[in-house]
Structures are given as structure tokens and as C-alpha cells.
């Protein structure tokens, strides 16, 4: 049984995600005026507060990657009192860590609770990417890399190009055929999971031959070598939120303990963004963050019952399995093809749909992942895993494996 590494217990509860909206959802129509970001923020706050009897948060944290460009809005702390009236006049903070923003935001909240500055911290993450056409959105998202050093030579859609290079290196090292089958299977599983999740961007995806789509041969003339469109998470709008609480805060909230999870492990690792990856076929920083999280919880990976991994691309999800130590180097394809990431498998992963199935509003994903772990570990998930072990693990990654935060959560049931 884990001991929390912290001087006092820290809990997560009252998780909520909005629908992640974008191409793929039936109701998505860019020719009509789209839902404003304020509406997403208000919805997620309402969703979290509805689960607590005590809306008096002590602090608020709002994470977003590039709102300054997508919606021309900064000074995000100022939105927290709009979302949670009780935060008027209180300490509010904006957090950014590219696509790993959510993880950093939760980590900051944990610090506030541990420092005794707060008993209840409201944490939210959001992003609005459909405000611009994807050809321009790609420029904005490229800011997650070392822009002045990398954008010029990069692919038109940038990040798919970055991970296509990693995929190419992985294929060269371990073979393309089986890896491609595993990536197609990853896509298939992401969509099948999303079909069970009404909030997911791919919820309405009824395509018949998902595996066939995942096996579409990459076309370097129209898109990229090594990766096809199905290997990529889509452009999304969405928000997610939860409360990070001390034991005192949890008591005050009226939320029963078995509706919360305890954060028993944290691993944070950031790597020099100006340098290329140590090894293109490994997520080195992710491996470090996850190792630290497991060490802080005094657990080994085989003790974890459910996972939320940052699959911005299918290849990222595949490599994550090796970074977590679930599969040995080169073994991730087999692991996936054996069904080990399925609900009934050894390592139920991304049962929410993950980034590929749920969507990836960059600032929201990390928070959304902990919300989904929370639901799994409290038995409330739409696609519930039969939990054999009471621990969940997630990692939230920013850029090309540069800004990573991992958490271990412990079910209180």
C-alpha cells in the first residue's frame, strides 16, 4: 500500500469535462457562430461546483496554452472570479506548459495545498482551437516547440511532422509492419472508447472499418511520411476542471471520501526545449517523470490499475507504454496487439478515448485526464474498467516530450 510522499494528504474531487468540440462532432459547424470560450469556462466551473456543498474555494488556477493567440486573451487569472464568484478577491493564477498545461496546473494546486496556503483549490484547463483554420492553428501550436529554432524547417502542420520523424525512427529500429498494425489498433481502440463517451469529440464517429482507416498508407505528398491522418489527435475546443483539496477541504466540501481520490505520487520533469530529443524512439522526459511519480508513491508500475496517457499521436501513445515500463523497448506494438490496453487487459488505458478519441484542447487535456482517472477510480466512468488495483496513473506532456507531469491517484473505495 502506498504512502503519500507529502506532509499531508492531498485529494482530487468534483471533476468535470465539457464536450470537446471540433471536426467529428455532429453539431460542429464552422460556418455558424461558434460557442464562446466564456461559455465553456462557466460550464466547467458549474459542473465542478455542483458536486460540492461548499463552493468557497481558497484559490483558483486556470491553465491554457495559447489563448493569447487563439482568442487574443491573456490575464487568465482574471477569469477565475467569473467562473467561481467565491474567488473574487482571492489568489488566482494562470499556468502554461504547452499541451502539458493541465499537468502543470494541477501540480501548482497541489503545492498550494501542501504549503497550507489553501485547503480548496479550483483547477481548470481550457483551449479554443477552432477559432482559426487549421493551417494557421498549426503555426500557433508550433509554439510548443523551440519556434525560432524549429518552425522554419518544419512541416506545414508542424507537430504531426515532429512525431512522424519519431515514428520513422521507431519503424527503422523495430520494423514498420507490426508497428503500423499497433498504431492502427491504437486508433481503433481510441474511437471505440470514444463511442462510449458522450463528451468525446469522436463520440459520433461511426466509421465501419476503423482498423482499415488506421492502416491507411501514409502519403508524404499530400500529408506526411510514416503517419496518416488517423494517427493524429484533432483540433478541439473544450474545458475541464476539478478541485484539489486538503483533508480539511474535502471534509468541508461534503464530498464523501469514496467520491475522491488521493494524490499519492507526483513526478515532474522538464527538458531543455532548445535541444533535440536524446533518442527519437524514447520519451525520455516522460519516462523520468513517471519514474519519479512511482518512486514518490513507492509503487511499481505493475501496481497501477488504470492509465491515462498523452496520445497526441498514436506513436506517442505507443512509445508511452515503453516510457511507463509497461512494455520493454520495442515491445509496445506486441503489448497493444495482445489487447493489454483494453478494458479487460493488463493495463486499461485511455478508456475515455484519450487525446485521439476525446479530443485535445491543449490547455484542458491534462486536467481532463485526471478527471477521467477520478471517474474510473470512483466507479463513475462511462466506460468503467473492472478495477483490479486501486491506483491510477496519468502523465501530461508539453511539446516534444519537454514539459511532463505525472500523477499517481489512489482510490478511496
Amino acid at each position: 500500500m502506498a504512502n503519500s510522499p507529502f506532509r499531508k494528504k492531498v485529494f482530487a474531487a468534483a471533476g468535470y469535462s465539457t464536450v470537446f468540440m471540433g471536426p467529428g462532432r455532429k453539431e460542429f459547424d464552422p460556418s455558424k457562430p461558434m460557442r464562446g470560450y466564456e461559455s465553456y469556462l462557466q460550464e466547467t466551473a458549474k459542473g465542478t461546483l455542483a458536486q460540492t456543498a461548499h463552493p468557497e474555494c481558497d484559490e483558483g488556477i486556470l491553465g491554457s496554452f495559447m489563448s493569447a493567440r487563439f482568442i487574443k486573451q491573456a490575464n487568465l487569472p482574471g477569469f477565475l472570479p467569473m467562473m467561481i464568484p467565491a474567488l473574487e478577491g482571492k489568489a488566482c493564477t494562470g499556468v502554461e506548459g504547452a499541451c502539458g498545461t493541465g499537468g502543470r496546473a494541477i501540480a501548482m494546486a497541489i503545492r498550494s495545498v501542501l504549503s497550507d496556503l489553501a485547503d480548496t483549490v479550483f483547477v481548470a484547463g481550457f483551449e479554443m482551437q477552432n477559432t482559426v483554420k487549421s493551417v494557421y492553428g498549426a503555426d500557433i501550436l508550433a509554439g510548443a516547440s523551440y519556434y525560432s529554432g524549429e518552425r522554419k524547417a518544419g512541416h506545414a502542420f508542424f507537430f504531426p511532422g515532429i512525431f512522424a520523424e519519431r515514428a520513422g525512427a521507431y519503424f527503422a529500429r523495430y520494423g514498420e509492419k507490426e508497428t503500423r498494425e499497433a498504431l492502427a489498433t491504437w486508433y481503433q481502440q481510441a474511437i471505440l472508447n470514444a463511442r462510449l463517451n458522450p463528451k468525446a469529440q469522436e463520440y459520433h464517429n461511426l466509421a465501419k472499418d476503423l482498423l482499415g482507416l488506421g492502416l491507411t498508407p501514409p502519403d508524404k505528398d499530400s500529408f506526411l511520411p510514416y503517419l496518416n491522418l488517423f494517427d493524429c489527435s484533432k483540433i478541439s475546443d473544450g474545458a475541464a476542471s476539478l478541485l484539489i483539496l486538503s483533508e480539511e477541504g474535502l471534509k468541508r466540501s461534503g464530498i464523501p471520501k469514496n467520491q475522491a481520490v488521493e494524490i499519492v505520487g507526483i513526478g515532474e520533469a522538464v527538458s531543455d526545449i532548445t535541444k533535440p530529443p536524446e533518442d527519437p524512439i524514447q520519451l525520455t522526459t516522460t519516462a523520468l517523470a513517471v519514474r519519479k511519480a512511482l518512486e514518490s508513491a513507492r509503487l511499481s508500475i505493475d501496481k497501477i490499475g488504470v492509465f491515462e496517457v498523452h496520445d497526441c499521436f498514436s506513436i506517442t501513445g505507443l512509445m508511452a507504454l515503453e516510457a511507463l515500463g509497461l512494455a520493454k523497448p520495442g515491445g509496445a506494438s506486441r503489448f497493444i496487439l495482445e489487447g493489454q490496453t483494453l478494458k479487460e487487459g493488463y493495463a486499461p488505458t485511455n478508456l475515455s478515448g484519450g487525446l485521439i478519441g476525446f479530443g485535445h484542447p491543449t490547455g484542458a487535456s491534462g486536467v481532463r485526464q485526471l478527471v477521467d482517472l477520478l471517474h474510473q477510480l470512483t466507479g463513475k466512468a462511462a466506460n468503467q474498467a473492472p478495477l483490479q488495483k486501486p491506483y491510477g496513473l496519468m502523465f501530461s506532456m508539453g511539446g516534444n516530450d519537454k514539459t511532463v507531469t505525472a500523477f499517481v491517484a489512489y482510490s478511496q473505495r
Partner: protein
Amino acid sequence: MNSLDEDLKQVAVIGAAGKMGVGITLLLLTAMAELGLQTGADDFSLKAIDPNEQGLKDLKSYLRKQLTRWAEKNINKLRRGFAKKPHLVSNEEMIEAFLGSTFENIDFGTSLEEAKNSTLIFEAAIEDVEKKAAIYKALGTSKAFFFTNTSSIPLELLSERGDVKGRLIGFHFYNPPAVQKLVELIVPASINPELSEKAGQLVKRLNKLPVYSADVAGFIGNGYFIRELKFACDLVRTLAKESSLEIAIQQVNTITKDFLLRPMGIFQLLDYVGVDVAKNIFTIMREYLPDPSLKEPLIEDWGSHQVIGGQRADGSQKDGIFNYSSSIPIAVFSISKKGYIPLNQDLSLGMPPLGYSWKALQKDPQRQEKIKAYFAVLAQEKSLGSKLTLSYLEKGAAIAKQLVADGIAQSLDDVSVVLKNGFFHLYGPHEVEAICG
């Protein structure tokens, strides 16, 4: 001889704001801008010339919108083209730079004078021998090569009247030029081989599907269409003896749409093209083939009742032989009543078998087998519709064969390519032959 790349640096379009001119201008502009990206030499010059000033303003907005979409869609080409420009980093910067430099290279004007330095001149003016000839005469002192979009006027005649013998070639786009792959190439007898060669290269550069037509009035496309139209009108007169002109028009329109599996009936197509436009082509073909039998009383009648058709600027269908609601026929013009009367519900044709439609078949990968099966079933049917369809098919096949026999088309395959691409037919005349025998 200049290379095509060199020639593509100084191009003019006369009639640039016209229905076809707009698309031809966009097509050429895109080719020139793309060449600029590839070579790094973005100092080309495109002159868009038209007497209609408002039309030129509309053309400018249209070009900006379409070129922006092209740039966004072809961002990879831009990134390759601008790879050596360190200050252009993001997609947005590249698209802005591309649009900026491209638009600096276009001049919009109302005077033919502006084209005097162009090496390639595309003429898409009104379908009139004298008006076209006047344009060539005005620009003939330059050393330019001329490409005319005429759909019916013989090239040798135009070359003589316009004093540009050897320097004019027929380069007939179909609608819309930016999208429609078919181009009819008509080479007059006195052609300068350099121009002939250049036209062949250009058609490839523009990624078009060329079909060569002999230099005979109407060429292949109108050669087929006008003769089929005459047959359709003859059939209307025959059928009208049993009922009325208005019913007969609807019957033939239905045969040529629902029974023949085409996107539109022949009279709706005539409205689409414009009754006045078709009348003009009849006149040109009658005079220059020559063929005195190409005179169609119905078209003259419609003309005298201001039944014209055509499209509005927004692409919607104007009233003509039919009265339209959202481009769908809802009434038919009665010459005797001088007004529109409601469509007849029952045309006594029976129903075409198997419930197929052009719309569904167009996307169907099995359409060839289905069409064959359809006509096999139809051949056995006894309805009026089926019988009329078979005789119409026979006539169509005969017209196509005659075009080949007369040397206008090089083969039935070529006629087929024109009909399938230019007119969106699902099958060619020799495929029909197999059924009709």
C-alpha cells in the same frame, strides 16, 4: 523559341471579367504564381482586360478569395518555395507574402493597349467573328501568340479576319475553367508549329485533358450538342401533334434526363447555356460549316418571346424555357399563351426501369455494369418513354459517328471524352452502340 516558362511571364486575358474569362484568369494566375514559387522568379505580369469596370472589381475580389484558398490548400508548395527566405517562417507569413507579391503582378484595365507587351494572349470575348477579329487586329502588331476560347468559330477564318494567320489557336475551355479538365484544341491549317507545340505544353502545364478537334465550325462539343438539340426539337414537333408543344417539350426533357441518365434534360441544359447563346452557335455553324439545315424554328420562336435563360451572377438559373425555383423547373413557357403554365404531372412516358439516377450513378464505382444492365432492360420495355429513349440514343450515336466520319473528331473515344467531361455524360456513344446495335 521561348520556353513556356518564359512565355508565362507576360500573359493577358481579354474578356477577363466575363463568365469564362474569370475562370481562365484564375487558372492562368495560379499557374504563373506557382511557377514563381518554383523558380523563385516572382516577377511575372498578368493583364486582366475587360471593358466592364465593375466586372474587373468583382474579378479582383474573386481572385483574392480563390488564390487564398489555393495557397492554404497548397501550403506545402509555399513552404518549399519560400524555404530560402529566412524572414518567412509561419504558414500565415508565407500565405500573406505569396498573395502580396502575386497581386502586385496583376494589372486590371479596360484598354486593349495594356496587353501590347504580353507574349501569350487569351481571348475570351463575345462569340462574334468581327468582335474577335477586331481584338486580334488591335493587338496584332505585337509578336504575341493568341489563344481563343471560341466554342464554334473556325480558327482559319478568325486568323484571316483578324490578320493573325499562324499566330492564333483554338483553346476552348469548358465551364468552369478552373475545375473542368476538358480543353478542346483546334489547330488551323496555317498554324505556326511553335504555337501548336506551345499549346500542347500549356495544356499539360494547366493539368487539363486535351481533345483535338478539326477546324470545323462547332468543333466536337457544339458539333454534337447543336445537332442533338436540333433532333430534340424535331422530336418535340412530332410529339406535339399528339398533344401540345408544352407537353412535348416536357416529354423530351424528361427522356433526356431521367431515361437517358443525364444530369439535366436537353431543354433545361439549353436554359443553362442560354437560348440566345445556342441560337448564336446555330447561326455560326449554319454559316461557316456551312449547313443551311441548321436552322431551328423553336429557338427563333423562343428568342422572339424573350425566352433566354442563362445564369445570374450568383450562379442561380434564370427563367427561360422553364420557370425555375431554386434552379428546379416548376413551369414551362407556352409560346401560344405567351406565359408560363404549370408542369404536367403525367407525361404518359411510363417510368424508367430500375430507379437509377445520374446523381447516384455518378458516385457509384459499379456504374458501368449498372448502366449496361439498365439499357438492356429498357430495350425490352414497351413504354413510350423507353421507345423514345432508344431512338434518341440511336440518333446520338449516329451524330457521334458522323463527327468521326467527317474528320472533326479523331475517334469515337474522343467524342466520348468530350461528352463525359464537358457534358457530364455517364457513358459514351460507342458504349451505347453495344446496346442499340
